[in-house]
């Protein structure tokens, strides 16, 4: 750790570890989590509650010939068995996705991936529900599956989505961004061009808690209370109202404590809808919680991008243009959960942190017989893929030019005076100061010494690699005019009430999955109002108790909700000023603010604290005209732009030349997320994301065999890293505030997940340079590293 206190001690607080406002404090939510008192979806038990289980397809592609539910329905503990046919009657067999497609809730015509939902059983207990699944007989007429995205567009490829009228192939979209002509022209005249094909394999967010729901439909008043694992309770409620026809005011969505989301809990899964259907059919609450294999095999995966990258540069290493083409495997239904009109999300940020003359990308999306999804696992709507592409390509260029990869990056950064910087694909980077972050990471790493050590080791035949990546993140969606989900603008609300005794409650539209919202947002209010964070309760996750907003994903909570909370606190502060003026029998314009109180300019002794003002606001004082008798406020914040956090990462690996085993020896992460609200929480977010990066770079992949069987359906097969695979993280930071955000904060949730995989892969490739290796694809498992050493690195798909 490079620092412990970056904010000067607040004299009002007395203790620098317990600041009134920003600073390093322990998380308010942790006492309940570490004592096992969290309340997750599976902890919710309602009177008379029944249990649901889903029958899933054992095959990847087949026509549904018949389903016989009679034996299951006859099970003494079974209360209902639902098939696609039943749902057709309710017009619920198909549900709209967040990408203008539809997805089968229960299969009616065909199954299109292994693990797809075929039938739903509701029983008295979970065991009976599971047992009854085995009593359902399904006849499948097996069809050839499309497993490899490269084969999806072949003329003879089976058409997966024959449910869509007029569809004759598996192409979902062709999309492009940037200026193809200008980019081609730059490539034509460039001294040097490099090209590299690379795969960002299909991976899975695998949150510790799987997805689940408890649906409680009241047949008397027509009201639905739905507890679910959702990162976006308000968006879900509106979507249920639109799709299921239940009036929105009759729906209450509650997202309790969430055991990890990472984008896995943004979309609406068939299981949630089936729990609701089960409750409506039986008149009882119905719980459905998927098991680990169901989570891995059927819920939103991430990535699966087959990319080609190209860079044009001058001989002395000035990068001129980047060009890329992508084949995107979206699985059986186009269900990416992302808020842009661009089907590749934010991928067009592939220009990275560099000042280019031209850039162009084209992306083709295809259907395959695999689970749907694609935008998840802390990807910032595909910034992950974009950063991996450009950061891998810069290293390919460095190898070609025989330049140091850190120096090459320093040479090409967007310069501080160019911000706000408009890139060649239409983004406006809000602020940045890249070189100091790069230099700080090199200094923390001891970069020159590492390069010397590497040279000595190479002499002895030892394989040591040093990998660099520099990323610019794109988070905080976002301005309503550009970003929406099914027409809902990407704004967030906040409500703040200061109680008569000066304690407060702030209500949020975003939903924590472990990010520490109950602490961070209390600290923002504390910073703005000068009341201690422990006196501020943070309420979130319940649509009946919180203002409307779009939820937590894409690192948007601090950039959007953080802005809302700062502004609502300022609104309360302004209101307090008028009440203080009345109390002090002076004019509001004669008052001055210091953290926690308004006082008379030039007379610091004459002042009123927020607590005193709150009591007066609710008391007998004659309030000024237009001032309500409370100290409350609400806002909806529509951010003017996205925010662009950045960071410089350096990874040191050792590779066992005899076995291909990769050991991540060191990892240095310098992050800049603008204003730092709680450095401890920021470091925690970075540590988690770096661990994700080790997982993706070294071991994680969801593979399929030729028959479309998912080979990553358990934690025996889908590996995620443990403490043994990760080093002691070395973190540092710079602070470049966002100029447009109310407190200058940019968001940190996904930076490390986005930035770390290329640093690790670059380090592995660097270690293998003596073998002439210039690229290898993730995951860098021992076998794949050994193959690369033999000169036959192969893509994983």
């Amino acid at each position, binding site marked *: 750790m490079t620092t412990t206190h970056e904010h000067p001690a607040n004299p009002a607080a007395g203790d620098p570890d317990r600041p009134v406002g920003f600073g390093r404090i322990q998380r308010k939510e942790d006492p309940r989590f570490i004592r096992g008192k969290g309340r997750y979806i599976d902890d919710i038990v309602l009177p008379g509650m029944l249990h649901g289980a889903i029958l899933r397809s054992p095959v990847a592609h087949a026509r549904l010939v018949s389903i016989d539910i009679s034996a299951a329905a006859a099970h003494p503990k079974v209360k209902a068995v639902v098939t696609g046919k039943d749902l057709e009657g309710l017009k619920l067999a198909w549900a709209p996705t967040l990408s203008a497609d539809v997805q089968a809730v229960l299969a009616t015509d065909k199954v299109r991936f292994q693990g797809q939902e075929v039938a739903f059983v509701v029983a008295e207990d979970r065991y009976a529900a599971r047992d009854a699944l085995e009593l359902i007989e399904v006849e499948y007429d097996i069809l050839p599956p499309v497993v490899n995205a490269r084969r999806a567009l072949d003329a003879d490829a089976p058409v997966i989505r024959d449910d869509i009228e007029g569809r004759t192939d598996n192409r979902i979209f062709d999309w492009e961004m940037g200026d193809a002509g200008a980019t081609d022209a730059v490539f034509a005249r460039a001294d040097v061009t490099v090209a590299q094909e690379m795969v960002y394999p299909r991976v899975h967010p695998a949150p510790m808690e799987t997805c689940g729901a408890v649906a409680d439909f009241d047949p008397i008043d027509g009201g639905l209370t739905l507890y679910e694992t959702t990162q976006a309770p308000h968006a879900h409620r509106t979507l249920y109202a639109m799709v299921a026809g239940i009036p929105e005011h009759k729906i209450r969505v509650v997202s309790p404590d969430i055991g990890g989301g990472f984008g896995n809990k943004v979309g609406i899964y068939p299981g949630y809808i089936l729990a609701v259907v089960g409750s409506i059919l039986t008149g009882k609450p119905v719980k459905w919680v998927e098991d680990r294999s169901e989570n891995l095999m059927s819920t939103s995966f991430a990535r699966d991008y087959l990319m080609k990258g190209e860079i044009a540069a001058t001989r002395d290493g000035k990068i001129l243009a980047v060009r890329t083409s992508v084949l995107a495997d979206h699985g059986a239904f186009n269900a990416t959960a992302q808020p842009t009109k661009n089907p590749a999300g934010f991928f067009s940020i592939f220009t990275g942190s560099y000042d280019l003359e031209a850039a162009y990308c084209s992306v083709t999306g295809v259907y395959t017989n695999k689970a749907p999804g694609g935008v998840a696992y802390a990807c910032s709507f595909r910034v992950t893929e974009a950063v991996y592409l450009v950061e891998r390509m810069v290293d390919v260029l460095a190898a070609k030019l025989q330049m140091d990869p850190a120096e090459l990056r320093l040479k090409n950064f967007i310069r501080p005076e160019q911000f706000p910087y408009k890139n060649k694909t239409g983004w406006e980077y809000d602020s940045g100061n890249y070189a100091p972050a790069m230099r700080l990471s090199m200094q923390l790493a001891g970069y020159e010494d590492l390069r010397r050590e590497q040279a000595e080791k190479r002499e002895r035949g030892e394989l040591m690699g040093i990998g660099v990546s520099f990323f610019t993140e794109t988070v905080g969606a976002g301005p309503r005019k550009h970003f929406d989900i099914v027409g809902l603008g990407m704004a967030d609300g906040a409500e703040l009430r200061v109680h008569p005794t000066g304690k407060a409650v702030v209500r949020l539209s975003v939903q924590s999955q472990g990010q520490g919202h109950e602490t961070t947002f209390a600290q923002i209010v504390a910073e703005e109002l000068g009341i201690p964070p422990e006196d501020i309760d943070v309420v979130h996750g319940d649509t009946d108790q919180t203002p409307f907003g779009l939820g937590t994903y894409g690192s948007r909570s601090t950039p959007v909700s953080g802005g809302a909370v700062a502004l609502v606190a300022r609104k309360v502060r302004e209101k307090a000023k008028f009440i203080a003026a009345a109390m002090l029998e002076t004019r509001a314009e004669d008052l001055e603010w210091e953290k926690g109180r308004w006082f008379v300019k030039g007379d610091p002794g004459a002042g009123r604290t927020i607590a005193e003002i709150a009591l007066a606001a609710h008391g007998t004082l004659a309030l000024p005209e237009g001032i309500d008798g409370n100290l409350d406020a609400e806002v909806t914040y529509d951010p003017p732009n996205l925010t662009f956090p950045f960071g410089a990462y350096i990874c040191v690996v050792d590779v066992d030349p005899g076995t*291909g085993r990769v050991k991540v020896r060191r990892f240095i992460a310098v992050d800049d997320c603008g204003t730092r609200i709680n450095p401890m929480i920021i470091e925690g977010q970075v540590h988690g994301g770096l661990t994700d990066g080790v997982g993706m770079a*070294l071991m994680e992949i969801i593979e399929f065999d030729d028959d479309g069987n998912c080979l990553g359906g358990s934690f025996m097969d889908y590996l995620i890293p*443990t403490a043994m695979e990760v080093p002691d993280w070395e973190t540092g930071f710079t602070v470049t505030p966002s100029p447009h955000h109310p407190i200058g904060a940019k968001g940190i949730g996904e930076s490390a997940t986005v930035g770390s995989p290329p640093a690790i892969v670059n380090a592995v490739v660097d270690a293998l340079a003596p073998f002439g290796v210039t690229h290898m694809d993730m995951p860098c498992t021992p076998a794949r590293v050994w193959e690369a050493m033999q000169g036959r690195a192969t893509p994983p798909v």
Partner: protein
Amino acid sequence: MQIPAAFDYVRASSIDDALALLQQHGPESRVLAGGHSLLPMMKLRLARPEWLIDINELTELDYIRRDADVLRIGAMTRHTTLLESPDVGRLFPIVRDAEQVIADPVVRNRGTIGGSLCQADPAEDLSTVCKVLRAEAVIRGPNGERVLRMDEFHRGPYETALEQTELLCEVRLPVRQRSGSAYEKVERRVGDWAVAAAGAAVALAPDGTIEDAAVGLTAVGLEGTATEAETLLRGKRPAEELFAEAGRAAAAACDPVADQRGPVDYKRHLADELTRRVLRRACGRAGAEREG
């Protein structure tokens, strides 16, 4: 939560009770030791026993005892106990090597040597370890006790010589003078099954030549031990070139299959590479013991 098919459960109170229960409930019953293979298979409904006979209360099977030139290990001895035993570590460093890379502490706290050997998973480490240590398996059944050599006990993937009515009770490891042993595994991640692993045990003659050697491989389709490699080693003085020769022989003897952990040629390469490494280490340890 993954839910197994319905089953009945009974707790054995003694070895004789366990044997009687096995007799009583027949082929659809399974013995539950640590449960770290059986229970996951049941949850995935790949295994569907009608009865579980839990032997976790048979503390009489949880022991490590030195008896002249034999170390007796009770079948219910947990991995953690083996890992932490000074006797085991001193006499059979290969066991400690292997135990350090078997699964993770949670599994090691519960899993047993008997369970591992009876499961006979092809990627299971202790089967290889016991083979190269020329261990014996002590089995009790309705007709009394019988003792099998490991190569008789272990019949192949998921298959042992144990009858349905029998219980593995003890593993005997012969203690040899001037001996050394070692184990090394390549895995994709801590706790994953082996991509490949090798174990070796050697005994040196007073003149420093290799008197006896055993080489075993895990997860690469080698039945028994690598006898050709062992023949090459016997009577020779430990040397890098000799280890390389033995490595090549072991690699030639194995028969790996390609899977998500790697292709055939990589696994064969590992058989070679890891054989060299464990022989180097085993001979070093044997020499150190001689000097000590």
